[in-house]
Structures are given as C-alpha cells and as structure tokens.
C-alpha cells in the first residue's frame, strides 16, 4: 500500500487507531496490546492521572512518552465549565495540548451532552487547544463542532462500552460527507467487522478501548483491530462493487458452454 497518512491538528499520523488505556487486566498486557495495535495516539481520563507527577502515574509510567501523542479526555465532566477546568489542568501539567472533550449527560448511557460539548469546544479552541470532541452521531451538531474549530470530530457508533456496533450507518455516512476535518468513530464498536465497516463508510480513524482491553486475548485483538482498519480503509479507497439482486458469473457465462 502507498503511504496513506493523514493529519489531525497539523500532526501527521500513519496509524488510524487511537487506543484507550483503561480497563486492561495489567500493565504488561496493556503495553503488549499498544504495541500490537500500532497506535500513535493514547487516550485516558484526566481525572485518573496523577497530574503532579505524570511520569509516576500508575498507568503512564509504563509508556514511553516520546513515542505517543497523548489525547487526555474530560470524562466525568457533566458541564462545559467542568470540562474546560479539567482540560486546563491537563495542559498545565505538561501532559498535552490535545484534548478529547467528553461531557456526559446521563450516568447510565454516558451519552454526550451536545450543547455543553459545543460550548466547551468553542472555549478550548479559543485557548489554543487541539480539540477532539466526542459527540453523538448527529450530522448537524458534528458540522457545528467543525465550525467551532474542532481539529477532528468523534461521533459515537453506540454508547461507550456497549459493543453494539454502528447503530446508524446512514448518519455516519452523512457526517463523513459533510465534514472536511477528520471524522473518528469513538465508542460503541465491538469487534473487527464493526471497525472495517466504519472505515468502509469513509471515516478517517477509530478510537476504542473496551473491545481490545476486555477481549480474552487483548494483544491478539489489538492486532485484529489494526488489520481491520487497514482492510476497511483499503476497501474504501478501492471502491466496492455495487450490490445486485441476481447472480452474474464471474467467469462469464460463455466459458461454461461446452462445444
């Protein structure tokens, strides 16, 4: 395959997988899975991090910081103000100036609050952050986030951790069509076929955590996701055949005639 790099906030990336660091059974499995996934971007909840001394944090201490871009997230925030405060803390600690805005309205579904997310995105963009909001798969709000200056927009396929796969492929397709910044599917995917399908719809990347971390073999699953992203991306770029109602022989019917 030719080089098929892409960019987020001016940063060139080759891997199209962003991996969450939560939920892994232990640091060894986590590090092996990170390696197997080929990811260049790691995401984690800011509230879980030991911000006074990031290199001593229980999770980040195992990661070689120069190898990865950190995408800290504001999970747990329920308002824009709270998310903004958390993002500022993360930047002040020298962690990263990328931030995933994650503001949940409901503790059972953890679905994003679109209004607060838009507000936080506006504020953080003005403050110079590279902002990647997690949002519902609604084309209208996704467009508004792009207009507010989001470096990428990250619609969920389904609620976080459910593994339900892409509940609304139609909307996801529209979002890809209407946005010019990268679209990254964040949350709700379950397995490799979900990932391939998302990539075939033309999204630029995938962010996931649970399907890898909670697999029976997280390391093998990380590799599977890497391959699924590549397969889906190649299929998208190659152009699939149209669907037809009836069969048409691939060898051409003439060849079946015996003389």
């Amino acid at each position, binding site marked *: 395959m030719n080089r098929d790099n892409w960019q987020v906030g001016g940063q060139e990336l080759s891997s199209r997988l962003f991996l969450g660091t939560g939920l892994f059974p232990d*640091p060894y499995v986590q590090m092996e899975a990170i390696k197997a996934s080929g990811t260049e971007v790691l995401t984690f909840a800011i*509230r879980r991090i030991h911000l*006074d001394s990031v290199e001593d944090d229980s999770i980040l201490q195992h990661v070689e910081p120069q190898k990865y871009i950190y995408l800290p997230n504001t999970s747990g925030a329920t308002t824009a103000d709270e998310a903004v405060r958390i993002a500022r803390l993360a930047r002040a600690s020298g962690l990263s100036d990328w931030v995933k805005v994650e503001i949940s309205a409901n503790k059972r579904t953890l679905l994003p609050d679109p209004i607060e997310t838009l507000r936080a995105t506006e504020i953080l963009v003005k403050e110079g952050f590279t902002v990647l909001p997690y949002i519902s798969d609604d084309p209208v709000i996704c467009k508004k986030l792009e207009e507010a200056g989001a470096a990428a927009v990250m619609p969920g396929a389904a609620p976080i951790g459910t593994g339900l796969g892409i509940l609304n492929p139609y909307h996801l397709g529209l979002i890809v069509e209407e946005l010019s910044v990268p679209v990254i599917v964040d949350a709700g995917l379950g397995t490799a076929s979900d990932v391939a399908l998302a990539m075939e719809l033309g999204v630029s990347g995938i962010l996931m955590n649970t399907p890898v971390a909670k697999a029976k073999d997280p390391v093998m699953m990380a590799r599977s996701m890497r391959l699924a992203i590549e397969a889906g991306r190649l299929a998208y770029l190659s152009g699939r055949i149209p669907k037809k109602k009836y069969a048409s022989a691939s060898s051409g019917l003439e060849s079946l005639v015996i003389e």
Partner: protein
Amino acid sequence: MSGDIIVMGGGIIGLSCALELRRRGLNVALLEKGPCGGQASGAAAGMLAPYSENVESPDEFFRLCRESLSLYPQWQQAVKDISGVPFEYAETGSLYVVRHEADLLALESRLEWQRSWGSGGEILTGSALFDAEPGLTREAVAALRTPVESHVYAPDLTEAVKRACLASGVQIHEHLGRIELAEWRERVALWAQNGERFEADRLLISTGAWVQEMSEPLGIRIPVHPIRGQICAYTWNEERERLRHLVFTSQGYLVQKANGTLVCGASEDIAGFDTSVTEKGIRRLTEWNKQVLPVLGEVQPFHRWAGLRPAVLDGRPLIGRLDDAGHIFVAAGHYRNGILLSPVTAALIADSVEGKPLPEWCGAFRPNRFGEVQAGAFSGK
C-alpha cells in the same frame, strides 16, 4: 510416597486448597520448592475488597470475589480453630477517595450497581467524610464508603493455613528445589531435586506466577506472567491517628494493621521474575500517599518489600480441572486478589475434585480456555 492428590505450590492458594481437600477426607501431600508463603502470599497487603477492586461492572470475576468475601468470616474462623494460630481479621470497611469533581459521576454509577450487589455503599462528602476519616486531605472531594470490605494480615493468615494443614494431616514438603513432572497422563509422579519421588492419583497445580512452566508438559496455553508489586510500611504507634478504613485511590491504597504499622501499596511493574525493591518504585508510593494522608509527608517507611502477582492474559484466574485430563486441576493466576479469593478457590477446587460440576458462570475461569500450545491465530480450525 503415594496418596490421593499432590498439591504443587505452597502459597495461600495451594495451602487453602490442601486444607479444604483434607477436610473433605482426601490424603494430601503439598510440595513447595522454597518455603511455604515465601512468594506473593507473604507479600500481600491482605485486603478483602471485591468492590474497590472491581469498579466497572459486575462480571464473573467480580462475582467470584464477592462470593469469596462472603465465605471469609467462617473460613478464617475455621483456620483459627484448626490451627490454634491467631491472626488479624479486621472488618473495617473501605473508602475509595477521589480528588476531582469529575470523579463523582463514576462513583455514582459504581454505587448504583454495587449497592444492588450488596455493597451497602454510600458516598461521603464534606464533614461526613472527614468525621469518618479525620486524617484525610481536605482536598478530597468525596469517597465511596463500602462497609462490607475488610482485611487480614496476609503473612499470618498464610502461616495459620499452613499450621492448619499440618494439624489436620496434610503432608507438607518444603524447600524441595526443582520439581519435575515425570508422569501425568495416567497417574501422577513428580521428582524432587534430592531424588525423592512423589506419586498420587491426582495433581493440583497452584504455582502462582510460575504456573506457565507447566504449559509445555501439559500441552496447553497458560498465559500467566509475573507483575511485581512493591509495597512499604510505616511505624504507626499510639501517637498517630489510626486509619479507620482501608483507603483506596486511583494510585494505590493504605491499610492500618493492628500490629502498629501502616501499609502502603503497591506498584505494578513489568520486571520479569525480579523481586527487588527499587528507589523509583517506593518513591512513587511516598509521593502520592502524602497527598491523601498529609501526615505521611513527615515520616519515612521502615520496611519495603516486593512480590510477584500471577497475572493472566484476560485478567481472570485459572480454576478447575483440565478438559482432557480429569485428574489434573489448576488453581493459579489470582493476580491482585489471591488472598481474597483463597476460600472460594479452595471450595471450587474441592468440589471439582469430588466430581461435582462447577456453576456455569465459573466457565470464565476454565484452565483450558486459551487452547492448546501453538494454537495461534492462524493455525488449527
């Protein structure tokens, strides 16, 4: 020597299984390459904390932990009665302390599912929190209190289980050095380094972080690896305010022991089978813990040590009999919770040795679940 069952490994898991098997009438011999309790089990903080250790969702592993907690009151009493050895068992409850407002959402969803599983939990804030645990930093925003969690003094428990084994007639052979599995397909035979041969009808493998060594002879994948835990203790005599609960944070925990020490753990290091203590590992603990309990800024730990937790690829222990060799049993890979899980593991192993089927949800712990050796992603069916 010949008997009903040989138990390989004398940590808390092997010892507890041996005791339970003996209580059910079997002739048991336990083989330990070093001293009993000389590895992870002697290093543990002894917390019995299914709720604080499972913060996401009530899966099979949580269920196993909770089941074991419910067995503890009777189990620890039985160990005391049989051994005549006392040890600390403290029903203190726990506090999971958070320092960000943003942690409240996660605490609330945890509270909701854990209460429906008997945690009796509640969220404490403000003066209620500082009344409950006066030494805490005033920067603590809230804590989830789980009154049913408790702790034991792990080295004493391990020693007591060993004495209970001896008192009830388990033959314990320690300091055997290298032990080789000579035969296992029909009957079981093992050679110790000194030339002694041990035979039995059945074998239980409970060799903790070393259990992967059995992968090759048995032909099954046993993806267990060591994760080192470094931990330290402070002298905590009468002049100091005693901690009333187990205290957890996202970075580690604090446990007040009756013997006048305060234990602070623990790192999770990728360091192979190296059990040394490092400057960096302990500094990490002393840096965060004073932010939770400010008085720790004034003192230095007097004791530092480390142990190897047996970690499994999917985070769950291996408990049960082998599919194709019904006389071989495995109990290993208990990672951070082997002290907690010892009674339930002993009960499940004794049940399966007696031929009882394990409950269906225990399928999550089947020792065969990772398939055969070399059955990688692209071979086999």
